[in-house]
């Protein structure tokens, strides 16, 4: 299958602090990759570099074979191909649930309103939030907000979804409903890159696990391999703690 994202020799530093060092990895179409590792290991930064919310200080990012760090590449168009789900949901506070899912398709993708509404309702149904279409973000619980955020990302019909610790800001009883939705999406064959602390979930849904520590990818392999026979000492230590 085709590679959607190829990352080559990616570096990122904030000032003199190196957060990512020589990162190499690719994501194939339909693959679910979970990125795990302790706090401060650079997982979130890696994810944010992929859709260029952070600009890398070195290396290449290829999207379907095209170098997107190339001058003249339209970043905004590129970002429409990747959906992002944030830890803090970041729903647009000025829009209700339905508009949150429609504003991108209408204003950025220039889709007709009717079509955008149809697509938005379809994905709101997938995440089970269609009955809340007229609710405002502040009227929803954390889990509901995150499900709307997932629907918003899906409504752009992206090639891949990026999840940045989607359940870390949720109350324990709401984690389940979000993970359930994400599992369904994985079963639908969507390409997903998930930064998470939910080890059980990672083991269950992912085709590949990437373990990061201190800004480098320490281990990259099938979940059974990484969880059952980790090659690296650091991975072992982390998994024992987790």
């Amino acid at each position: 299958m085709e590679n959607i994202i190829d990352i080559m020799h990616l570096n990122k530093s904030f000032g003199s602090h190196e957060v990512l060092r020589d990162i190499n990895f690719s994501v194939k179409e339909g693959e679910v990759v979970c990125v795990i590792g302790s706090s401060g290991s650079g997982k979130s930064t890696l994810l944010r570099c992929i859709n260029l919310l952070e600009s890398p200080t070195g290396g290449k990012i290829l999207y379907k074979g095209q170098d997107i760090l190339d001058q003249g590449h339209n970043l905004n168009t590129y970002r429409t191909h990747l959906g992002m789900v944030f830890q803090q949901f970041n729903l647009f506070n000025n829009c209700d649930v339905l508009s949150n899912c429609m504003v991108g398709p209408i204003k950025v993708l220039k889709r007709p309103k009717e079509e955008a509404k149809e697509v938005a309702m379809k994905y709101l149904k997938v995440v089970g939030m269609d009955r809340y279409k007229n609710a405002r973000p502040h009227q929803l619980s954390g889990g509901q907000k995150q499900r709307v955020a997932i629907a918003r990302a899906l409504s752009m019909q992206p090639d891949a979804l990026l999840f940045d610790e989607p359940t870390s800001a949720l109350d324990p009883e709401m984690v389940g409903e979000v993970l359930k939705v994400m599992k369904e999406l994985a079963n639908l064959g969507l390409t997903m890159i998930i930064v998470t602390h939910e080890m059980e979930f990672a083991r269950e849904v992912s085709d590949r696990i990437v373990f990061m520590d201190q800004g480098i990818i320490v281990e990259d392999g099938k979940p059974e391999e990484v969880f059952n026979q980790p090659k690296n000492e650091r991975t072992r230590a982390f998994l024992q703690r987790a």
Partner: protein
Amino acid sequence: MSLEWFIEIIVNNWPMFLRGAWMTLLIATVGTIFGALIGLIIGIIHTIPKSKSRIKRVFLKCVSIILSVYVEFFRGTPMIVQAMVVYFGSDLIFHIDMNRTFAAMFIVSVNTGAYMAEIVRGGIISIDNGQFEAARAIGMNHWQTMVHVVLPQVMRNILPATSNQYIMNIKDTSVLNVIGVTELFFQTKTIAGNNFRYFESFFVACILYMIMNIIVTQILRYFERKLAGNATYQLIDNQEMLRGQKAS
């Protein structure tokens, strides 16, 4: 002073008072609306992210310096002086014979704009960075982010400050009598000049200013409340759904 005098002044001069009040309201309203627009546009420009291209960076720097000069000039000088400078200056330097009403609206607009620029800047800073990131993540450019996501929230947040500015404008248009705009203060001065009842005439003006401000305040409060919305969302089929969840 007696009550009869009072009533007599109102009865004899009410068309003039009303014309003055109308003019005051018109100038203050137009000034506040255009001032707010100026403030929003400056807010958008001030928050444009740094471009990679050098030419764009330099250009943006120049624009931002010009805007700072504008804000500092109009915030740093009294409106009464600005009125004189703009009205007589435009005639002397550019040979434009400005319509007085237009001049008045222009001065109040640019003056309000200078204040609103700062209010909007504060409003944009107060918006959570996650809103900007979420907008960028779905591919919005700076303009789209501002217009569809950030500014609607900013406008809601700055509504109380804008109301304040509006009320100040209603009162401060009185200084425009120096360029002969027929607003409420100017009209009252004319009336008092005819009947020599200064206290009574200006007391009527006082009441008119107050009525205008109370009405404006109430209207804007209504909008504030309306924009705040409900704290909870009532699902019509809430119970049904809960039952459904338990069953599954």
